[in-house]
C-alpha cells in the first residue's frame, strides 16, 4: 500500500462504542415513552395481522443479527494489521446456492402465510353475526360516519359496539384519504368514485386514536378520528340518543342561538335534524354537543373553542373550508354556542 493514507493506525475509535450505546438507546426509548398502538390491536383481524407482523419481525431480526454478526466478526478478524496475505477465494458455488435458496424458501413460506392472512382478514362476516354497516366518507378535512341501518350520521367520532363485526364501506368525497385506526390493525384508502370494504370486530371497549394517512391537502394533519368502542348496551344507548332529532333549546339563550343559526349561512352547509337546516357540505351538527373534539381533532370540544372556531376558523385550523363569522355580535355568538353545545 504505497501511497495511500494509512488510517489503520488507530484502532476502531470510540465510534463503535458510541454506536452500541446509540443502538441500545434507540431500541429502549419507545419502551419508556408511548404505547405502540399499531402493534397492540383490539380487533380480531388486527390480532391476526399483528401475529404475521411479529413473524416478519422475528425473521427480520434473525437476518439483521446474521448480517451484523458476520460483519462484526469480519471487521475484527480481518483487519489490515493482521499478518498474512488476503485470501484469493472469490467464488464459492455452494455458498451462493445456499444464500440464494435459503431466503427463497423462507420467503415462499412467508408468502403462503401472507396469502392465508389476507384471505382470512378480508373474509366477509357471516350474516348470523349481524355485521353493522358503517359508511365512511373522507372529506377535506373531516370524516363522516353514516350508519344507514340505524339512521345515524356523525362526524370525526366513530362509535362502535364491541364483539360485533363492523363492515366499513369507505369512500372519498373529494380527494383520496385513508382511514386508519392503528388499533384496528389496518387501514383502507377512501377514494372518490370507489367504495372499499374493510371488516373488523372490535374486542375491547375503549377510546382509540385514528387519522387520515393519505396526504389530502392543507389540513391533512388535522383529519383525525376518535373511536369510542362500547359494550352493546352502551352503544344502543348512544344510538338511541343519536336517532333522536336535535334537542330543543333548553334556555332562552339557546333559543336565541337557534334563531342565529337558522338565519345565518350556517344552514347552507350544516344539517341539524328536526330543523330546516339540511346542508350536506359540512358535518352534521344534530348532536354536536355530544362530541369530544372539534375540527377533526384540532381542539377539544369546549364552548370557548367552539366560539373561536366559529369566529376565527382560519386561525384554529388554517385552510378549513368553513367561513369566518367575524360579524356576529358577541351576544349572538354566545347564544349560538349555547345552542350548539346543548345539542347532546
Amino acid at each position, binding site marked *: *500500500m504505497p501511497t*495511500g*493514507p*494509512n*488510517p489503520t493506525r488507530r484502532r476502531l475509535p470510540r*465510534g463503535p462504542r458510541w*454506536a452500541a450505546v446509540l*443502538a441500545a438507546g434507540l431500541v429502549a426509548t*419507545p419502551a419508556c*415513552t*408511548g*404505547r*405502540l398502538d*399499531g*402493534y397492540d390491536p383490539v380487533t380480531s383481524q*388486527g390480532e391476526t*395481522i399483528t401475529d404475521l*407482523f411479529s413473524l*416478519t*419481525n422475528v425473521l*427480520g431480526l434473525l*437476518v*439483521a443479527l446474521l*448480517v451484523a454478526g458476520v460483519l462484526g466478526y*469480519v471487521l475484527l478478524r*480481518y*483487519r*489490515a494489521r493482521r499478518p498474512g496475505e*488476503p*485470501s484469493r*477465494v*472469490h467464488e464459492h458455488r455452494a*455458498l451462493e446456492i445456499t*444464500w*440464494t435458496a435459503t431466503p*427463497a424458501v423462507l*420467503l415462499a413460506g*412467508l*408468502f403462503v402465510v*401472507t396469502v392465508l*392472512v*389476507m384471505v382470512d382478514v378480508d373474509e366477509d362476516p357471516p350474516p348470523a353475526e349481524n355485521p353493522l354497516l358503517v359508511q365512511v366518507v373522507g372529506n377535506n378535512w373531516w370524516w363522516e360516519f353514516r350508519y344507514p341501518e340505524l339512521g345515524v350520521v356523525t362526524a370525526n367520532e366513530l362509535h362502535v359496539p364491541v364483539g360485533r363485526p363492523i363492515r366499513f364501506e369507505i369512500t372519498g368525497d373529494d*380527494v*383520496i384519504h385513508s382511514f*386508519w385506526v*392503528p388499533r384496528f390493525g*389496518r387501514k*383502507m*384508502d377512501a377514494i372518490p*368514485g*370507489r367504495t*372499499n370494504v374493510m371488516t373488523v370486530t372490535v374486542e375491547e371497549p375503549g377510546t382509540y*386514536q385514528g*387519522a387520515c*394517512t*393519505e*396526504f389530502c391537502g*392543507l389540513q391533512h394533519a388535522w383529519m383525525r378520528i376518535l373511536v369510542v368502542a362500547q359494550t352493546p348496551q352502551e352503544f344502543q344507548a348512544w344510538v338511541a340518543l343519536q336517532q333522536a332529532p336535535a334537542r330543543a333549546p333548553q334556555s332562552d339563550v339557546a333559543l336565541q342561538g337557534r334563531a342565529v343559526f337558522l338565519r345565518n349561512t350556517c344552514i347552507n352547509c350544516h344539517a341539524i335534524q328536526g330543523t330546516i337546516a339540511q346542508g350536506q357540505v359540512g358535518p352534521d351538527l344534530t348532536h354536536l354537543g355530544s362530541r369530544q373534539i372539534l375540527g377533526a*381533532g384540532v381542539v377539544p370540544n369546549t364552548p370557548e373553542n367552539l366560539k373561536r372556531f366559529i369566529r376565527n376558523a382560519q386561525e384554529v385550523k*388554517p385552510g378549513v373550508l368553513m367561513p369566518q363569522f367575524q360579524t356576529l355580535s358577541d351576544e349572538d355568538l354566545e347564544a349560538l354556542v349555547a345552542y350548539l353545545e346543548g345539542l347532546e
Partner: protein
Amino acid sequence: MAVASGPYPRPRPAPPEREGLLGWFTTVDHKRIGILYLLTSGVFFLVSGVEALLMRLQLATPEAEFLGPGAYNQLFTMHGTTMIFLVITPLLLGFANYFLPLMIGARDMAFPRLNALSYWLFLFGGLLLHFSFVEGRAPDVGWFAYAPLTERPYTTTSSADYWALGTLVTSIGTIATALNLVVTVLTLRAPGMTWSRVPVFVWMSVFTGLLILWAFPTLTAAQVMLLLDRHLGTDFFKPAEGGDPLLWQHLFWWFGHPEVYIMVLPAFGIISEVIPVFARKAIFGYAFLVTAGALILFYSLLVWAHHMFAVGLSVPVNAFFGAASMIIAVPTGIKVFNWLGTLWGGRIRFTTAMLFALAFIPLFTIGGITGVQFAVVPVDWQTTDTYYVVAHFHYVLGGGSLFAILAGIYYWFPKITGRLLDERLGRWNFWTMFIGFNLTFFPMHFLGLMGMPRRVYTYPDLSGWGALNLAQTVGAGITAVAVLILLWNLYVSLRRGRPAGDNPWDAWTLEWATTSPPPAYNFVAVPVVRSRRPLLQEALPPVRGGAGGDPAAPEAGPALRREAGHGVLERLSPVSLGMLAFISSEVVFFGGLIGTYVWYWDRSLAGPGPEVLDVPLVALFSLALFASSGTLVLAERRLDRGSRRGFRLWLLATIGLGLLFLAGQATEYTSLYREDVRLGTNLFTSAFFTLTGFHAAHVTAGLVSLAALAWLTRPGTGPGLRRGSPAANAISIYWHFVDAVWVVIFSVVYLWTAT
C-alpha cells in the same frame, strides 16, 4: 501481448474545449459534465437538506406553530422531489458520467453533445421547479402528486404545474443520459474488456440506464395527461367525469418503484468497487452479483402495485405484487452476502470511503428487511403511509444510496481533483453522519407504530410522540453538522489536500490507470484489458492510437475482437443503437397512452364513444403510412447500391405518403370537431385525441428527419450520405417504429373498439 487497433474505438481527437468559465458552459467532456452533475446535485442536496431541517424544527414539539401547513406541505413535497429527481439520481449519474468511460477505457461517452444537453435539461428542470419558490407556490402535493389532489379545484395555484413541468424536463435529460450510458458501454469498451471483465459499477450503471429508459416514460405520459387535465379540459384523473385516480397511481408507480432501484443499483455498484479495494480482495461472486442486478432490473418492473396495497385491489392482484416484491429480496440478499464474502479473509483498511461502504451494509439491510415487511400485504395495510414507511425508505435511500455516494466521494475525489480528502475530518464526518442518521430515522419506526401518519405538519401531544420527535430533530442537527464537516473537508482538501498520485488506493480498475485528474483525452493510449482487475496485470501494455498511432502496431486479431464480445447489438453503429434504446423507451411511453385508452374507452359517463370514428376513411390514409415503410426500404436499398438519385426519389415518395397520412388525420379531426367531438368532451375523447395526437407528433418528427436526409442528398451537393449511413439507418428505424405504433393504434382503436 496483443495490441489493438482497427475495429477498436480509438482515442478520437479531443473536441476543442474553451478555457475558463465559458468552457464549463460549452463543454462536452464527460468528466466536466460529470463534475457539473455532481456539483449541481450537491447544491440541490443542500437546499433539500435545509428543507428537511425546517421540517424537523416544526416537528420538534407537538402542535408547534413554527411553520404553517402551507409552508410545511411545500417543504416535504420539495424535499422528496428534489432528493429523488435532483440529488440521488443525478449524483449517481454524475459518477457514472465521470467514471464509466474511464472504467471501460473509453475516450468519452458515445454521444458527448447529447450528454451536455442532458445535463442542461436536468439543470433547467431543477431551476424551473425551484423557481416556484420565487412565485411563492412551490409544489405542495407530495412527490407522487396523487390525483385528484393535483386537479382543479383542489390545487388552483400553479404549484402542480411547476411540479409536473420541472420534473418532466429533468426526466427527459435523465432519459437521454441513460441512453448514452447504455450505448457507451455497448460500443466503447476497451479491447479485451469482455462482458465478464466489466467492472460491477459499470454493470449496475447499464442496468440503471435500461431501467430509466423503461420506467420514466409512464411518468412522462402521466404528467402530460395531468397537464392536459389542468389546462385543456381533459378528464383523465377527474372522478366526477368518470376518471380513475388509480390510473395515476398505476402510471406513476410503474415509474416510481423502478426509480428506487435507479437510485440503489448504482449505489450497489459503488459499494462493489470500494469494498474489494479496501479489503484487498477480488469481488466475491462477480457473476452472481451481476446476475442479481439483472434480476432486480427485471423484477423491479413487476412490483409497482405494492405501493397500492391499501387502495382496495383484489386479493389475487395484491398477492401477485406481494410475491414479486418478496422475490426481489433474494437478489438483494445475494448482493449483501457477496459483499460479506468479499470482506471475509481480506485485509481490511478502514479508510473513510470504506467506513461509509461498511456502514452501508447494515443500514441498507435494515431498509431491506422493512422492505420485505411492506411486501407482506397485511403488514403493509398497517404500516404504509405512516412514519414506519418514512423510516424504511430513508434507510434504503439515505443509509443505502447516500452512504454509498459518500463512499464514492471519498473514494473518487482524489481521481477527480488530484488531492486526497482529509482522513481525520473524514472520520468525524463518518461518525457524526452515522450517529445523526440513525438518531433521526430509527425512532421513526416506533413513531409509525405509535400511530403517526406521514406528511403531517403537526401532531397532537400523545404519549411519547413529543420525546421521539425531539430526539429525531436532534439527530437531524447532528446530520447537518456531518454535512458541514464534509463541506469543510472538501474545501480544505481541494486547496491543501495531500497529492493523490495516479492510484492512491492501489485499486485495480482502469480509472486509476491514468493521471489524477485525467487529461481531456483520458488515456495516452487505449488500454488493453486482460482480466477483471486490469491494473493487476504486470504492466499495462499501451496501444498507441489516434493520429499519432504507431503504424507498425500489429492488427488486433479476430480472436481479441470475439473476446471483447462484439455481438449482434455491438455491431450496430452507436447511432442506430441509440435509436433502438430510444425506441425501447418510446414503446413504454406509447404503452402508457394505449393502456390509458384501453382503460377508458368505454368508461365515459356521457357523450360520444369510438362509434363516431370513420373507420374506412382512416383505413385509407393508414394505407399511405403503411406503404411509406415500404418506400423507405426501397430508398435504403438504393443508397446501399450507391444510387443517390434513386434514394432521393424513394425518400421523397416516403415523405409524400407521410404527409398524406397527416392530411388524412387532419380531415378526421376536423370532421370530429364539427360534430362537437373535442379533446375535453369526455374520457373517450381525452384518451383518443391524446393517443392519436402524440402519434401524429411522432410522424411529424419523422418527416422532419426524412426531409433533413433529403436535403443532405439534394442535387449538386458533395458526397453527402455514404452507403450504410448510420444516420439514415437510425432515421429509418424510427420511421418503421412510428409505423408499427400506428398498426397497434389502428388495431386497438379502430378495428377493436370502433366496430
